[in-house]
């Protein structure tokens, strides 16, 4: 699997795809190194970096103490010093401890220095709920981070993006946060043979449809695809748009799809109020208001610290059934009034 035939299709897990991407990056550029808690000896808390320590050694697969602010800041400094650090913050929940470094240094240094500096750091974070980890370990903050100018926010939701987005992130001179949903690590799928390098600027239509646009990213994308299946049996053809990057937003792709379908439902694992779904909705309203046949609808996480108990957690998170219901609501309202 280390050297797949360019034209042989490979089945691979999301986890292995990320690991292959890391291996490529480390092999291809001596300035790249991976740093974070338990990325080495332990093999990564989600086993993503397993085996890399043996292959690349402790200097480049660097275990850190529990010091999120310092090792994220050190990644920023290392980037300023000419390296291409990949900093793994085990989960987004712990990144709160490093937010000062991310917002006040990584995101500002290029502008504050009048363009003299750039901070080509890649920060990888596991994100999301769904594993009954409780309130402190189930945050979905990627949309929240997308509020910060100076950062690029990317969310690989497919095997191909898990495999190829890291290279694009490393190629960027700007700080990039890569959010990997912990629910996706075990997802298996086919790696498109010899897939073209991806960029961090474009959304992708994962399922074409004419009746409504489902805008989503990350784990929610797969819930949207499941909902679209169900809906198509009812004769409703949903187009499913994978945002892929939350900052910058591919507004053109969103608007193009919505102008075609004239209806939109935004699905976002963030807490409803102030989630990215609000920004997406607003962009649509600002620029495609007169193209809408119905109000934009949202399916988000309930406004509650995500609880441990399975039935409560499931009730708190977006679900294919909830998405399908929202779509039916939007479709049924169409035409009325306008």
């Amino acid at each position, binding site marked *: 699997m280390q050297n797949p035939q360019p034209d042989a299709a490979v089945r691979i897990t999301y986890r292995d795809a990320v690991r292959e991407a890391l291996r490529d990056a480390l092999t291809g550029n001596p300035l790249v190194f991976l740093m974070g*808690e338990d990325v080495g*000896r332990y093999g990564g808390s989600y086993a993503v970096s397993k085996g890399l320590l043996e292959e690349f050694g402790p200097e480049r697969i660097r275990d850190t103490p529990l010091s999120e602010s310092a090792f994220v800041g050190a990644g920023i400094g290392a980037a300023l010093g000419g390296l291409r650090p990949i900093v793994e913050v085990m989960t987004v929940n712990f990144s709160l401890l490093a937010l000062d470094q991310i917002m006040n240094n990584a995101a500002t240094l290029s502008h504050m220095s009048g363009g003299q500096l750039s901070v080509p750091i890649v920060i990888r974070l596991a994100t999301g709920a769904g594993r009954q980890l409780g309130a402190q370990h189930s945050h979905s903050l990627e949309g929240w981070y997308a509020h910060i100018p100076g950062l690029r926010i990317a969310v690989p939701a497919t095997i191909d993006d898990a495999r190829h987005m890291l290279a694009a992130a490393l190629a960027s001179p700007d700080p990039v946060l890569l959010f990997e949903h912990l629910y996706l690590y075990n997802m298996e799928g086919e790696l498109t043979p010899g897939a073209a390098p991806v960029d961090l600027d474009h959304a992708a239509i994962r399922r074409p449809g004419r009746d409504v646009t489902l805008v989503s990213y990350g784990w929610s994308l797969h819930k949207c695809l499941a909902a679209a299946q169900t809906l198509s049996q009812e004769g409703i053809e949903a187009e499913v748009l994978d945002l892929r990057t939350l900052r910058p937003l591919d507004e053109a792709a969103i608007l193009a799809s919505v102008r075609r379908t004239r209806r939109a439902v935004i699905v976002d694992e963030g807490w409803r109020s102030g989630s990215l779904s609000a920004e997406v909705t607003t962009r649509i309203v600002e620029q495609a208001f007169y193209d809408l046949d119905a109000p934009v609808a949202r399916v988000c996480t309930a406004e509650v610290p995500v609880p441990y108990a399975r039935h409560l957690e499931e009730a708190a998170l977006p679900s294919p059934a909830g998405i399908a219901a929202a779509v039916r609501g939007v479709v049924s309202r169409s035409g009325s009034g306008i």
Partner: protein
Amino acid sequence: MSPSAGTTVGRQHGLQLLREMLRIRSFEDRCYRLYGEMKIRGFLHLYNGEEAVAVGAMQVLQPADAIVSTYREHGHAIARGIPMKSVMAELFGKQTGCSRGRGGSMHLFDASRRFYGGNAIVAGGLPVAVGLALADKLQHRTGVTACFFGDGAVAEGEFHESLNLSALWSLPILFLCENNLYAMGTALDRAQAQTDITTKARAYRMEAVAVDGMDVFAVEEAVRSAVDRIRSGGGPALLEMHTYRFRAHSMFDPQLYRDKAEIEAWQKKGPIITLTSRLKSLGLMTEEDYQRLEREAGAEVDAAVQFAESSPWEPVSDLERFVYAEPSA
């Protein structure tokens, strides 16, 4: 390193300590199985091997004292007196759980016992403990706040800020560092330039003592003298408990970072084995006594599982309750 070598041990007390440790041990062993049966989900961090720390400390702490713990807190919760069944029910995610099923293994709470959780953010509990101690001090109460955390937490900035604040304000707080040599897969000496945690604590002009965390008498004695000092206005202290985690960090840990030999060596020093043989050799306990204690512990765990199994789920309609305090509250 065991200051208790010379202590005279009474049968009652010896059996009491052993009973408490066995209760925790059999609770944890059952949790391990229940996780395999998917009755317990999420992250599960077991306390096997470290029982002497929780049990020794809780002998000293009073109802008016406050406890702040970590995600590896089953032992602290049980030793504090939270009924095993409400802890087990919590792990099952049931309404009868000590956090109504919202917390899970990492978030056990019991306000009536001043048990303030259960914190899944490493070192996240330390500042909260500082505040609890400040509240006691400003209200002229004699309570002491006991704050448990691991060796890994020592690297976090919150350790630094919290120890300084506590020493600066001379707060009634006891920091209990459970040094089990690893933070997940990271050995202490690969995380800390200075591996002697008492030395770090003294850099804040704080009293600090290293303790054999495998010797429940040593723990109890060290905690007693520290708590007495603190209660009488002597200011904060840190105890570094040398202990070891017998099981994996969590249920997802292949343990690539340590070898069997090391684990076995520590198991020989285990708090339960050593206390058992000690009590027997002192003629304070018979094998029958031991069997009985084990049976009783097992029976209590059985009852707890029973209770958890038969308990109701919180209705989904109540999902958003408690996000904000309720008028009643």
